[in-house]
């Protein structure tokens, strides 16, 4: 199609088989070597980072990580633009051109001491490993402290210095493969919606509606869209490639099992699955990037915008994914209902909150029109785990710092953290444990 600008994203994948420390940061034959000193210099470019170390953890290691704040896939943009435009550098269009990625690995950002409501836990081995996708990855762990005294004892933390350090580190590591040929190239390309071949445009049109977490009024906590606080936007049409290629970064607010980390946005499984179906069973029309709000009118306004955009695109069906639970269930159900009312067949993906006993109402808001829901876990499921040989971060944070699934004292269960290092917690604090991006192998059943 001449004269029409089309986003064509190529993700050049390098499969990481092992990670080690060494003299230079490089990638050879599946082995990623990291020069720790150099990597730490990148981390410490921000003077707010007061203390930092990097560790490597792999599936099966007897390691517990807490408080985990963020996960980012190491990548590098071959046009040398910033990995996260509007966040780590100038604004530019993403979702086009070549981005290289180190697969099977993530940069995990862990607080050396202090955690918060939004932070989580990862066990790399044992019973706890099954609760999070990130135990399956070889992880480059940045464990660091900052001078952000204003929020040291606050339950809600922006985690700005740490999260931004993680993004710099992911880009620094990603650069190591910039001069090599990837193991494979994934291509993501969609013709403009109105210019598609008949055999595709006659298939049922499907949109993916994403509801990232944006419920904090103050800046610094919400998911960002090209650096823009997504609380301050109305739902908008985006190319799926933009989401996969760094347009979105995770916020720092939601109870952790509900969180979509930046890694989740970069690899959003629902987007990849819709790409697979595109041209076969559906006509993938794109992503409607919505948000989650506080006031009822805001919730209704967003739902109305989503349904209207979907209708105008001629969508016959939609998938809605919600980052969060509790209050934002109202946004989720409102959006599902608005789409159904517009005649669009809709499936929802979210977790539930049925309580430790499993007896509570699964979502805050319910409607019989939400008749096709995928459930990815129970945020308040009680999880007991034995001690782990090594803790990276500070185990006490789980009990002390108000993590959403931890507590200092409970009549029946005592503290979340026991003297022998064993823990009792709610699923709430499993890092991105409910895999709403599409990873979750959990569902909800009647017992």
């Amino acid at each position: 199609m001449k004269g029409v600008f089309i986003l064509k994203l190529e993700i050049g994948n390098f499969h990481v088989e092992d990670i080690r420390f060494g003299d230079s940061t490089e990638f050879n034959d599946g082995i990623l070597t990291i020069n720790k000193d150099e990597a730490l210099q990148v981390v410490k470019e921000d003077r707010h980072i007061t203390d930092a170390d990097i560790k490597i953890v792999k599936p099966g290691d007897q390691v517990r990580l807490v408080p985990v704040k963020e996960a980012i896939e190491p990548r590098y943009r071959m046009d040398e633009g910033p990995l996260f435009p509007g966040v780590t550098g100038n604004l530019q269009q993403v979702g086009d051109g070549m981005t290289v990625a180190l697969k099977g690995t993530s940069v995990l950002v862990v607080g050396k001491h202090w955690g918060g409501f939004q932070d989580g836990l990862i066990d790399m081995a044992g019973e706890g490993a099954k609760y999070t996708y990130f135990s399956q990855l070889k992880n480059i762990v940045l464990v660091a402290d900052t001078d952000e005294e204003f929020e040291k004892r606050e339950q809600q933390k922006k985690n700005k210095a740490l999260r931004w350090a993680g993004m710099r580190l992911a880009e620094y590591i990603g650069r190591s493969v910039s001069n090599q040929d990837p193991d494979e190239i994934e291509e993501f390309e969609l013709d403009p919606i109105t210019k598609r071949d008949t055999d595709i445009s006659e298939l049922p049109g499907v949109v993916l509606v994403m509801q990232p977490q944006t419920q904090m009024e103050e800046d610094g906590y919400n998911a960002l869209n090209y650096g823009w606080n997504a609380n301050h936007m109305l739902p908008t049409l985006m190319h799926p490639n933009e989401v996969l290629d760094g347009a979105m970064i995770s916020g720092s607010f939601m109870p952790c099992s509900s969180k979509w980390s930046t890694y989740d946005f970069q690899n959003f499984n629902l987007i990849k699955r819709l790409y697979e179906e595109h041209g076969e069973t559906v006509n993938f029309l794109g992503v409607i990037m919505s948000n989650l709000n506080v006031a009822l009118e805001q919730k209704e306004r967003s739902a109305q915008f989503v349904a209207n955009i979907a209708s105008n695109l001629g969508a016959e069906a939609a998938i809605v994914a919600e980052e969060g639970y509790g209050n934002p269930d109202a946004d989720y159900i409102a959006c599902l209902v608005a789409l159904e009312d517009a005649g669009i067949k809709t499936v929802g993906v979210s977790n539930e909150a049925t309580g430790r006993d499993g007896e509570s109402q699964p979502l805050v808001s319910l409607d019989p029109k939400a008749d096709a829901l995928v459930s990815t876990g129970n945020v308040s499921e009680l999880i007991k785990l034995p001690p782990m040989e090594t803790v990276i971060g500070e185990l006490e944070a789980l009990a002390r710092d108000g993590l959403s699934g931890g507590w200092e004292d409970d009549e029946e269960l005592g503290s979340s953290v026991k003297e022998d290092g064993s823990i009792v917690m709610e699923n709430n604090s499993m890092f991105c444990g409910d895999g709403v991006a599409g990873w979750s192998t959990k569902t909800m059943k009647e017992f």
Partner: protein
Amino acid sequence: MSNKAVVYINQFFGQIGGEEAADHEPEVRDGVAGAAQAIAPNFDGEIVKTVICGDNYMSSNQDKAVAKILGELEDVDFDIFFAGPAFQAGRYGNACGAIGKAVKEEFNVPVVSSMNVENPGVDMFKKHIYIFPGGHSAAKMRDDAKKMAEFGNKLLNEEGPFLAEEEGFYKRGIRHQYFLPDETPAADRAIDMLLKKINGEEYQSELPIPEQDLVEIAPAIQDLSSTKIALVTSGGIVPVENPDKIQSASATRWGKYNIAGQDKLENRASNKYKTIHAGYDPAAADADPNRVVPLDALRKYQEEGRIGEIHDYFYSTVGTGTTEGEAARMGAEIAGELLEANVQAVILTST
């Protein structure tokens, strides 16, 4: 060591008599008696006691009957409790449910029953004990008792989890997360469900929307000038030291705080009140707790004679992640106190 069971049956199935014996007081016999024999052949263990009680006696003297049976079972060593099958017999179903629930709570053993779907005991007790769908009448005795016995064996000998859809007992509204054995990721499940929905094929929602337990809105109060009003919040406003250690999310505790003689709630900076709620931005509530617990506005109304009186305490808990079950319990506890204090209206603020 073999498993030990206790079986509960009514006067009819205990071969004491029909309707004329329905006032029969509970008795506990050694070993298998009456229709407990229907359970025995399929139960992998020993039936150590059979409890027999008249249906009328249980329904008109339930507390007494339950207390007596619990008392007699106190020294009995048993691992599981079977009640019924009760078929479509309403009073019998109620009796099986009532004693089953009490036994489960007192002795912490699993309880298994069987009732026809029309039996009112199903809805009353399916949450508390395992109830299997059963026949209309005793013609189905053998089948229904077999289901109970076989599930009892499973409960005692296998690890679980025991899912309603696989085992066949009535769904209990108890939902837990479950790792799919075939590890199908959520994205695949969503696409599969979407394609089926598009194509008009049958699919199963993983969250069937349950029936809603809605509370009717009370009629408006005609004259507020003589009404005593209390302030209650799920917005987490507490004295800065959080004396009741109310949790910041998934709360199970509430507190009450004396506001007698206060014009307004002083803020966090004055070291008086703050919010511990972790589900919203605390800045505004910390700066002025009255925006969550509007004592200042209510005092003005009181001065102007628009309302009668403000209750001396406000009540507080945290709503984020707090389960419906815990919220209902706390609400009932707080309502009890308010009724005792003759409070006639409540301003309930959420966040």
